[in-house]
């Protein structure tokens, strides 16, 4: 029997059981649509995490004290307060660190800020003038911390735009931090970031003020932010920084170092690995629904073979070979899944269009998951169609004819 007629016969029989065919197709449709939508959502969240991290500046390196190993127990980075202001001045030496553009020590904690019109809890960082450069930020009104502020332990504070509006304060107003009055000297330009790690909800005070009057002890810093002169010199800046710190910490074996330097690239790849894992997890759940859809196809094909036993017997008597019948049933299963797959793509794309507009969830649809979902759907249909088709092909014509 020619392929064209096999397909025609298959379509005729599928159209003969319209409701059943539609329901079976739905199983595949939802599976494919779910794969496309979840991978799209995963892709979009991965993109947004990437964008958020790169907006922090790809030149950024972070030195944290840590990798403290005491009695064989790894305390995790940052668990030992080993960074000092002398490390900062060492790193500021342009002679030994030509590729480091800016050095900003950070001594940080959470604190309640109180203004005349409200109070607001946020992260308060003690830092220096270079903080603006390392964090690639700008001031929208007022000024940032000056070198002199650090020397005099001035009671001045720079606020993120969200923090300032929540406190209802502007430049020149007073804000109380742990019962100490600070004068607002500047507001940072907003970054537009939201949610967890909001870059517009923070406060910056001079490092010395933070150390002596808010958190920590004199001279200690939690982190040192470094800015390389360009994205291309991050690698050499990394080497220079670790050379200098090994020297100031009197460590000869680099594997024993009591500090960790991370670059944005490392943070980025970690974050991407996390979002990728999440995407794979979501897509697997969706893929299982696709599999269930495939089993639905197999189920309906088995029903169809049983129902049409006498038709199969008749076709055999009229000269259909086992191969003819095998092809006919595999093609029927293939048509069911192909139609389901294509409608699933349409549904998935529709979800990708509607959800961002209705629910403020970003969806990024790329060709690969779309094509592979359809490919898998058709493969599933053919694989699950094989067993019923073999059953049809192997029916003995006399038994089949008698089945009526």
């Amino acid at each position, binding site marked *: 029997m020619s392929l064209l007629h096999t397909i025609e016969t298959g379509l005729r029989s599928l159209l003969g059981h319209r409701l059943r065919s539609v329901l079976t197709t739905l199983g595949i449709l939802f599976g494919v649509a779910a794969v496309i939508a979840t991978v799209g959502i995963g892709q979009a969240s991965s993109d947004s995490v990437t964008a958020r991290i790169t907006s922090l500046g790809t030149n950024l390196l972070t030195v944290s004290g840590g990798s403290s190993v005491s009695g064989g127990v790894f305390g995790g980075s940052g668990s030992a307060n080993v960074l000092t202001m002398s490390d900062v001045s060492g790193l500021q030496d342009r002679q030994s660190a030509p590729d480091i553009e800016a050095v900003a020590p950070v001594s940080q904690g959470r604190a309640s800020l109180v203004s005349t019109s409200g109070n607001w809890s946020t992260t308060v960082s003690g830092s220096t003038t270079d903080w603006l450069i390392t964090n690639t930020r700008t001031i929208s009104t007022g000024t940032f911390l000056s070198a002199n502020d650090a020397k005099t332990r001035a009671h001045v504070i720079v606020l993120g735009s969200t923090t300032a509006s929540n406190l209802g304060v502007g430049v020149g107003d007073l804000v109380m931090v742990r019962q100490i009055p600070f004068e607002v000297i500047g507001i940072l330009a907003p970054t537009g970031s939201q949610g967890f790690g909001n870059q517009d909800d923070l406060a910056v005070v001079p490092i010395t003020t933070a150390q002596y009057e808010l958190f920590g002890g004199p001279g200690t810093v939690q982190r040192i932010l470094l800015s390389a002169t360009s994205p291309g010199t991050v690698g050499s800046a990394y080497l220079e920084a670790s050379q200098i710190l090994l020297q100031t910490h009197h460590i000869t074996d680099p594997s024993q170092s009591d500090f960790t330097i991370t670059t944005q690239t490392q943070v980025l790849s970690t974050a991407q690995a996390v979002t990728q894992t999440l995407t794979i997890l979501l897509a697997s759940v969706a893929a299982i629904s696709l599999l269930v859809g495939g089993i639905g196809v197999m189920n309906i094909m088995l029903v169809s073979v049983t129902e049409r036993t006498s038709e199969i017997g008749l076709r055999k008597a009229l000269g259909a*070979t086992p191969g003819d019948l095998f092809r006919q049933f595999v093609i029927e299963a293939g048509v069911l899944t192909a139609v389901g797959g294509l409608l699933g793509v349409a549904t998935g794309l529709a979800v990708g269009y509607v959800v961002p507009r209705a629910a403020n969830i970003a969806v990024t649809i790329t060709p690969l998951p779309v094509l592979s979902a359809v490919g898998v759907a058709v493969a599933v249909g053919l694989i699950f169609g094989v067993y019923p088709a073999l059953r049809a092909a192997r029916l003995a014509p006399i038994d089949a004819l008698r089945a009526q």
Partner: protein
Amino acid sequence: MATDSLIQIESVTKVYGTGDAAVAALRDLSLSVAPGESVAVMGPSGSGKSTLMNILGCLDTPSSGRYWFAGQDVSRLNETELAHVRNRRIGFVFQQFQLLPKLSAWRNVELPLLYRNVRDRRSLALQALEQVGLANRVDHRPNQLSGGQQQRVAIARALVTDPDLILADEPTGNLDTASSRDVLSVLRELNEQGRTIIIITHDPEVAPVAKRTVHMRDGQMVDEVAA
């Protein structure tokens, strides 16, 4: 074996089941049918006539013995080869008509042609329907036709491939007397035009249509009567 017979069966035995449950439906049966003959195979149920029909129609193979169809040994063919023999050389007429309910009369008649990639299927189907007197019913579905008309569609389907043999299994079993007479006269006409016909039946009214009657009992031929 050289033979002028269309059908030559030599000491065919068909056993169903194994061991203690084994039942011999045909025992050492031999039969030959010349081209253009018409034969009625008669016998009560359980006599083995259905088994004989399955073997004659290449729907089943004998347990032992030989079967030559038009000079070709078909007793050792595989399923696909048997399908080709059925398609090209044998036309079946069943008691239950076995028409596909969703297809029109001519689509039903066309079916065997689909398995041999013939062009002009529609005109061949219409020709066959005309031969059985249903030229004005080509687009009717089976449920729009009477029993006799349905069986005539089935005969047209058997004819459309221009087969060497038409094998009819209780062709009037589901029909009233008038329709039976109708269908039998079509079969007789076909035989008069030179086509070989074998009718399996238990109905003594049917047998006279054939020129030769074979009686079966317990898987064996008991006597042969030439009309």
